[in-house]
């Protein structure tokens, strides 16, 4: 499956990702450092104190020097600098910790997205033009039309308020857990993943309907295979190929969505940090978070490309 060519391909892509990450953080860095120095601080500082602070954050040098120092620190030490608001807090360990939490949430959401999406899509295609199909297809449109915060809000209302007696009100994520309690994670993960599950379902359905018309499905049937084997082994594997294409945008969607969902459920991940640091004007953290996001998007796209290799033997790098 993975040949030497694949390894070379992975190597090239990793290099490309590193450069993309640097490019993205550079753009954000330069965009933010365009602001006048005092706009970066919330306090009104003057004189020596202000100069000290500027010096502390390396802001007293020319922009190009600042940028060079930033890149060197990032590449050599993985250092993203220090928070502007909470002085002394290093950004790299902060965002790495938060990244872990977000990955956990996002991964769980992806299970909903792909699991439910494939299930609904396959069932709708197998039961094409029956009421099952219509219900699932309509649910799909409703699903991707509902903003995730609306879904989240209704989930909170139902499980957190109306069913509080049943759930004990423990629908909020508990702080500080690297391995969060999955029992508490499933509500936010569902709210985050479901809109995209609808998209996966629509695509899977269309793709399945295309595939089941293919000659090799007829061959499989002529061999006397069971219908479930035909659907899962012969149809679904082929139907997945076009579905994989949207996994890249999907990963971006989940990252984006996590900003809202983490805020709503109080999950201390990257998304919450991102919104918070923007509102607090803690711009250096924004750079850090965005660097993480760029890396995640790059990795997600790499995984997608490798998924093609696993699913479709005709694709080799």
């Amino acid at each position: 499956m993975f040949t030497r060519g694949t390894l070379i391909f992975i190597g090239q892509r990793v290099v490309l990702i590193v450069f993309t990450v640097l490019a993205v953080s550079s753009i954000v860095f330069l965009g933010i450092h365009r602001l006048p120095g005092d706009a970066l601080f919330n306090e009104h500082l003057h004189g020596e104190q202000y100069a000290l602070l500027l010096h502390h954050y390396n802001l007293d040098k020319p922009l190009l020097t600042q940028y060079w120092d930033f890149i060197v620190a990032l590449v050599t030490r993985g250092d993203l600098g220090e928070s502007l608001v909470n002085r002394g807090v290093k950004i790299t360990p902060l965002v790495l910790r938060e990244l872990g939490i977000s990955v956990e949430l996002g991964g769980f959401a992806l299970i909903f997205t792909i699991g439910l999406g494939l299930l609904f899509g396959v069932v709708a295609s197998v039961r094409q033009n029956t009421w099952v199909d219509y219900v699932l297809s309509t649910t799909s449109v409703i699903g991707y039309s509902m903003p995730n915060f609306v879904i989240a809000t209704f989930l909170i209302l139902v499980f957190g308020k109306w069913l509080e007696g049943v759930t004990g009100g423990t629908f909020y994520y508990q702080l500080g857990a690297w391995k969060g309690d999955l029992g508490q994670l499933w509500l936010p993960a569902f709210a985050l993943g479901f809109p995209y599950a609808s998209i996966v379902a629509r695509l899977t359905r269309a793709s399945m309907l295309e595939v089941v018309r293919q000659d090799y499905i007829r061959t499989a049937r002529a061999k006397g295979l069971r219908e479930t084997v035909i659907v899962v082994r012969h149809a679904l594997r082929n139907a997945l190929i076009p579905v994989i294409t949207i996994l890249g945008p999907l990963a971006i969607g989940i990252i984006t969505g996590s900003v809202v969902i983490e805020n709503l459920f109080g999950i201390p991940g990257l998304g919450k940090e991102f919104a918070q640091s923007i509102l607090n004007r803690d711009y250096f953290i924004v750079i850090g978070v965005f660097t993480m996001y760029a890396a995640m998007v790059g990795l997600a796209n790499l995984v997608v490309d490798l998924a093609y290799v696993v699913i479709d033997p005709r694709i080799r790098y």
Partner: protein
Amino acid sequence: MAVTVRVDAVSEPVQASLWSDAWRRLRRNRLALAAAIYLILLVGVAIVAIFYTPYRMSATGIAPDYATPSLAHWLGADNLGRDQLSRLMIGAQISLIVGVGTQLLVLAVGVPIGLLAGYYRGWLDQVVTFVINVFYGVPDLLVALILVFLLGPSLANIIIAIVVTRWMDMARLVRGQTLALREREFIEAGRASGAKPMKMLFGHIMPNALGPIIVQATFGVPSAILFEAFLSFLGAGVQQPTPSWGSMAKDGVDAIQFAPHMVIAPAIVLSLTLMAFNFLGDGLRDALDPRSRR
């Protein structure tokens, strides 16, 4: 084989019947029709809200804070005692302005870029394609969020931020359409007879790509509305006291334990609106391109 000889081989495929056929198919799609009716009502509400709202949307304390729905305040009041219904009506204006305004700008930016890239190909196309791919590779909403903060939150800046991050859907579509259309005989004939490029692009290619463009724009509206709601929900949207469905939902979520009515109304209206645009888009796509139907 019976071969019908087309005497008018260089005439354009756009025909009056295409649009009337599409209209006929659209009318038969009950879901799309219901969506259209809902949207017409919504536009009506937004227009009425210019002249009349039950209360002034920014007037605080006209009802007790967090007042539940009553005859005087059909949807209750918010955390500052402002009338929810009035705010929802103004919110409709904001959402529609953002949705439609964004798409108009996206059309103005995306259509020419797509036309030029698809028609001239070569380096121009490569540059455009590269830029489009770069934009597809970044989390659009988060870029918009940063932009809004760098530009300062206002309705115009929100629209600009959304256009900057969402123009490429349209550009990509138009580029693809142009690439396909420029090979068709009526375009070749036009080129051979020395028609000016601009006339070819806007007089011949664009009208023939109008169907997909309309569908794309229809789908673009809910995505822009959703964007604005997201931004407002995160506190980066239209600034108080101007209401937006997103910021109203945010205020509602903060009070969800004791005043759930505050979040329910904007959440439902927002979802219905997005759904209506999506159903309408589906209906338009099916009507304008019968081949893509299930």
